[in-house]
């Protein structure tokens, strides 16, 4: 047949513009020598550099936008005289209490509502409403009830944390694979075994998402809480800095909030790595 006869020879084909696929792959991997984590810092570093240039050349008003070097100097002074650590430890203590109480409360409620219809009927709608209320709106009420002591501050953080934990854990419990529950039951797992072997591990990923959101929410609630006549704390420092127009201190405090927020995310990532090892093999592909 003519089609067979007119087919070009193998030698011809190699010559006519074919490429080695490995060469293509190698080219695209050139930029991989620097670790990914370091590469990701490019954006922030460029931003700070640009800020420094614009401040020193006078494009920014130095009184409202101090250059990074001055912010660093202010940070050094605040650390050296101990005031930053003093205020920060007060704030950390508030967040710590709020987290402990909030996690216990949110987790307890989620287990009750997740495992029983009656519990769901009693608590779930209330928690949904509480979730819909902006945290800050509760401040006046908390002051009226508990004065301006530590109680309303910690309570505000507790509520924010509890709601995040509750919402995510409850929905995680209810979305545990029904097929697994059915199978475990058919193999004779009783209620206790079902809870600790199926329900709790199955809802752990959802709880950890809740925890991540709760940590973010706790720092936000802290800022609101420390508007309640706080004698100490990062919020107090912020108020003072605003009063005395210390813009560099404001920048330091914003950086501190950012660092604390990032640190919280690292904690949750660490917990996820430890508690969800069974998922790692799966996430790997």
């Amino acid at each position, binding site marked *: 047949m003519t089609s067979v006869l007119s087919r070009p020879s193998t030698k011809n084909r190699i010559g006519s513009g074919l490429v080695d696929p490995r060469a293509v792959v190698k080219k695209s991997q050139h930029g991989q020598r620097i670790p990914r984590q370091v590469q990701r810092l490019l954006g922030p570093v460029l931003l700070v550099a640009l800020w420094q240039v614009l401040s020193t050349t006078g494009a920014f008003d130095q009184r409202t936008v101090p250059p990074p070097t001055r912010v660093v100097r202010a940070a050094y002074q605040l650390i050296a005289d101990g005031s930053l650590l003093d205020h920060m430890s007060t704030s950390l203590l508030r967040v710590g209490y709020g987290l402990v109480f909030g996690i216990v409360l949110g987790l307890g409620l989620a287990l009750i509502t997740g495992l029983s219809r009656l519990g769901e009927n009693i608590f779930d709608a209330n928690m949904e409403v509480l979730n819909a209320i902006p945290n800050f709106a509760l401040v006046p009420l908390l002051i009226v009830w508990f004065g301006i002591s530590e109680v309303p501050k910690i309570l505000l953080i507790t509520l924010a944390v509890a709601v995040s934990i509750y919402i995510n854990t409850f929905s995680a419990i209810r979305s545990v694979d029904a097929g*697994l529950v059915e199978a475990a039951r*058919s193999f004779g*797992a009783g209620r206790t075994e079902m809870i600790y072997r199926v329900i709790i591990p199955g809802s752990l990923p959802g709880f950890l998402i809740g925890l991540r959101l709760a940590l973010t929410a706790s720092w936000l609630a802290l800022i609101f809480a420390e508007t309640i006549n706080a004698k100490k704390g990062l919020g107090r420092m912020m108020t003072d800095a605003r009063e005395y127009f210390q813009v560099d201190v404001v920048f330091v405090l914003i950086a501190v909030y950012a660092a604390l927020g990032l640190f919280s995310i690292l904690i949750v990532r660490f917990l996820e790595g430890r508690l969800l090892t069974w998922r790692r093999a799966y996430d790997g592909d």
Partner: protein
Amino acid sequence: MTVTDTVTETVVVARELRKVFGDNVVIDGLNLEIRAGEFVALLGRSGSGKSTFLRALGALDGDVEGTLRVPERRAIVFQDPRLLPWQRVLTNVTVGLPATSAVRKQALDALAEVSLADKAKVWPRTLSGGEAQRVALARALVREPELLLLDEPFGALDALTRIRMHGLLQDLCRRHTPAVLLVTHDVDEAILLADRVVVLTAGAISLDVEVEVPKPRRRESAEFAALRRWLLTELGVIDGLQI
């Protein structure tokens, strides 16, 4: 008690079973008995009620009318392995059993029987589809069931793995001699494995036939082909002329 007594003992009795979903009668006057150690394959088209029947036997669905008796020691293998991804393979096998060293030993033996002794400590998600289904078999066998319910257990496996699983299942049944009800829509699989094939049509048994194809059964044999043709006709897949 003599050996013949145990052989003829009936372990499943279903009389005039009826199950209704809304206006839809799924099981309608189903009668079936299974003897101890007997391997029964249940064939049926989609929606014939075969999975509903298996769920009733496995005590997964309670609201079935009629007489129904099954042994207390039962185990199910589902179409998907349904292993708990957050429990190691070994703990998946022992789920629902007391946490004793004897049970642990039995579970390890069961895993060895399905050639997965070395996977006892791994997470289920690292297993292949065939391996996961073998763990599900081990989980069922470690209970030494009198009745083993298989709900299209090989349906999701590739063809080569399925052939290997058929061999494994035959081995295991020879050793443990449970009564087996295999729900499948694969006619070849039914003839290959079962002592008796039952066809479910519109919620009732429409055909109940002993498989007399001599073992080892080969698809090429005339008896195999004849039974295959008969069952397919009963299932309404082909008419007599079309082979």
